[in-house]
């Protein structure tokens, strides 16, 4: 029995490095939702500094207003004030931002956030918000507030026609082409 368990653990351990590196842990407090970030930017919340870690070609497709692009590799050399709220943006599912988040926290920066879902979620939530035709009154009220915010950033909120499901995020550059040139 012990040998079987040891063999199972050994197998699970040996396979672990080959399972891919998609996992990085960012605490709940270390994240900010796209709509919340949009409010921060619109309201010019003091101290917010948005750091875009995506490659230049992706930044050109979807720009987040007030964001400055910094290469992940040069992040350690960048200077940040201790009172700044750093918001990290990546577009790859979050690994780059999560890794940068951990590095900045390890260097003593207390206020570091990762944009939830990266640039893809920014596009979905801020630029392309949708409302189901049969949505509850609370959802409709929330959508009104979101729509106002979305239009501020050049977004196109829309109410889905009956029978149409909310668009599934396609991801990748193809979807970004659609929103090229939008945003502040």
């Amino acid at each position, binding site marked *: 029995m012990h040998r079987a368990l040891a063999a199972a653990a050994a197998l699970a351990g040996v396979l672990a490095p080959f399972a891919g590196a998609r*996992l*990085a842990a960012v605490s709940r407090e270390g994240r900010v939702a796209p709509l919340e970030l949009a409010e921060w930017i619109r309201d010019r919340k003091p101290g917010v500094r948005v750091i875009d870690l995506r490659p230049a070609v992706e930044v050109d497709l979807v720009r987040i207003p007030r964001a400055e692009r910094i290469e992940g590799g040069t992040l350690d050399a960048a200077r940040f004030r201790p009172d700044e709220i750093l918001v990290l943006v990546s577009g790859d599912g979050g690994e780059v931002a999560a890794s940068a988040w951990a590095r900045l926290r390890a260097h003593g920066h207390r206020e570091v956030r990762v944009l939830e879902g990266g640039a893809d979620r920014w596009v979905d939530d801020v630029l392309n918000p949708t409302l189901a035709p049969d949505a509850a009154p609370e959802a409709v009220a929330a959508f009104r507030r979101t729509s106002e915010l979305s239009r501020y950033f050049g977004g196109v909120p829309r109410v889905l026609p009956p029978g149409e499901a909310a668009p599934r995020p396609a991801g990748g550059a193809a979807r970004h082409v659609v929103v090229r040139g939008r945003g502040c």
Partner: protein
Amino acid sequence: MSPQLPQLPQLAQVAPFVDLGTMGPHGTLWAAVLIGIAFGWALERAGLGSARRLAGQFYLTNLSVFRVMFSAIVTAMLGTYWLAHLGMLDLARVFVPETYLVPQVVGGLLFGAGLVVAGLCPGTSCVAAATGRGDGLSVMLGMLGGVLVSGLGLPPLRALYESTPRGALTIPQVLGLPYGVVVAGVVALALVAFRLLDRVERPG
């Protein structure tokens, strides 16, 4: 390019239970009670309610604690890692306690000294008390008293308590290694350590 396993099937994401609404707050409380009972039962069955057995760890006469605890760590680590890869657990929502270097070193030394003196740690003291051992009950009372005194005495200790913050560190971040490599390393370390224990242990 390093070889990779084929994309694993992605199952429904259900955990963390509260965050994802899989289980309400009452459900998680009940789950905590059941897990606590199971944990206590496992500790008792492993013989860790005995102070003699725990103290044997430090004299190399009985290394059950190491075996049980390291097995638990490896099991939890592998479960977390693979459940996250299967999509069932959102690892980004799992709380990672923050590291405060100096206070945690001080606390660790204090905890270790208490463990040697009492022969029990918080969990095993509860198990010992539940099985009617007087030393377990004494350690439990001492522990609760210590918690109360620490809480009341926090203001003058606050500077130490909040010193040397390092954020929510994990071993992969500190070592700069991929998560999977660290998992493999810990498993290898455990298997080698278990193999060596038989040679090191000197049953008294």
